[in-house]
């Protein structure tokens, strides 16, 4: 049985990237955990950060702000930053806020962006 409201973050380290797989819901109550994960040394030390959003069932503007701040931080460090396969609700949020235009979207977390 799925427990609503939980956010699980799994970090997968690859040679060229850190992949953060987000599962559950990211909102005001837990967006700080996403921020900490994006800012962790294992993630900031890689050439690229990829957020896998396929199983992120819900995200609010707090989560979105965290992702946009993460993208800005990565750019400042010279890292690439991308998201992949948003769920329906997250995709809608990205579109209505214009964030979809600011983020690099990959079709898979191991895809090499152009």
């Amino acid at each position, binding site marked *: 049985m799925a427990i609503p*409201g939980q956010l699980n973050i799994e970090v997968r380290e690859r040679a060229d990237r850190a992949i953060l797989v987000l599962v559950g819901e990211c*909102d*005001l109550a837990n967006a700080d955990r996403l921020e900490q994960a994006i800012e962790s040394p294992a993630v900031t030390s890689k050439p690229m950060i990829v957020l896998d959003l396929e199983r992120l069932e819900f995200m609010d503007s707090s989560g979105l702000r965290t992702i946009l701040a993460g993208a800005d931080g990565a750019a400042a460090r010279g890292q690439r930053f991308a998201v992949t396969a948003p769920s329906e609700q997250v995709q809608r*949020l990205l579109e*209505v806020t214009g964030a979809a235009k600011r983020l690099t979207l990959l079709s898979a977390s191991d895809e090499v962006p152009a």
Partner: protein
Amino acid sequence: MTEFPNARLTLSNRPENVLLVRQMLIGLGELVGLGRPGLNDVVTAATEACNNVVLHAYGEDEGPLEVEAHVQPRRLGLVVRDRGAGMAPDGHADGEPSDGIGLSVIETLTASSELRLEQGVEVHMSFEIPEVEPMSAPSEAPPLLRQIARCELAATVAIEAAPSVLASALLPRVLSTLAARAHFPVEAIADVRRIAERLVAQWATEAYIGAAASVTQRALFLRWGPFPQGTEDSVLERTAQARSAALAIALAEPTIAAGPSELLELRLEPHA
């Protein structure tokens, strides 16, 4: 929108409580046949309105967050309300800087939205929904909630439904989410959900029901009414039938007189 709502959730403006609002709205949306895209918009917009109450209504203090739902034949109206100090002309209650994403999301995802300054701030939102049967609600709230919400607001979630059939969409979701918050084992969470479903089945024909739930570290207290006098034993028996061995159920205290009906309180606690 002055009529009594079809559903109302009253709870503290803690960040973790916005999840309970989402659970209420998912249940309500499914009941009225709202598809996933429409439901996503309702839940997203309501979350942003609630976030404003969490972040801006009471400064460093804690205060009430109220969410009302009004179901009409082709329209769902939501009101998200605080009792705070009001909102500055730039749309922020406390002068904190904000990028305005939340309010922009509300405007985009709703059929209409309006900000009103009443005793606090009210965000009124409406959404198009499929044709549904009219749902009548009382012209005014029965005086139950005052008695139900005896606990500290910070630890209590009050749920009202009118007519009571709506409780079937709200209570199981809200209670099982609270049980998860109280770190109940998965089997006990499933039991809480089944018990809630069993309880609301008894309310199917009431004009209004009120319930309040509070959690401690290991137990969930549920108080609800109106309730026919003298039937607590049969309720206990029915709820016991709905559980596995994972959960203990007890009447937490004597019933509370509330005019012709009563309030009943159950204590639900996982076995150690």
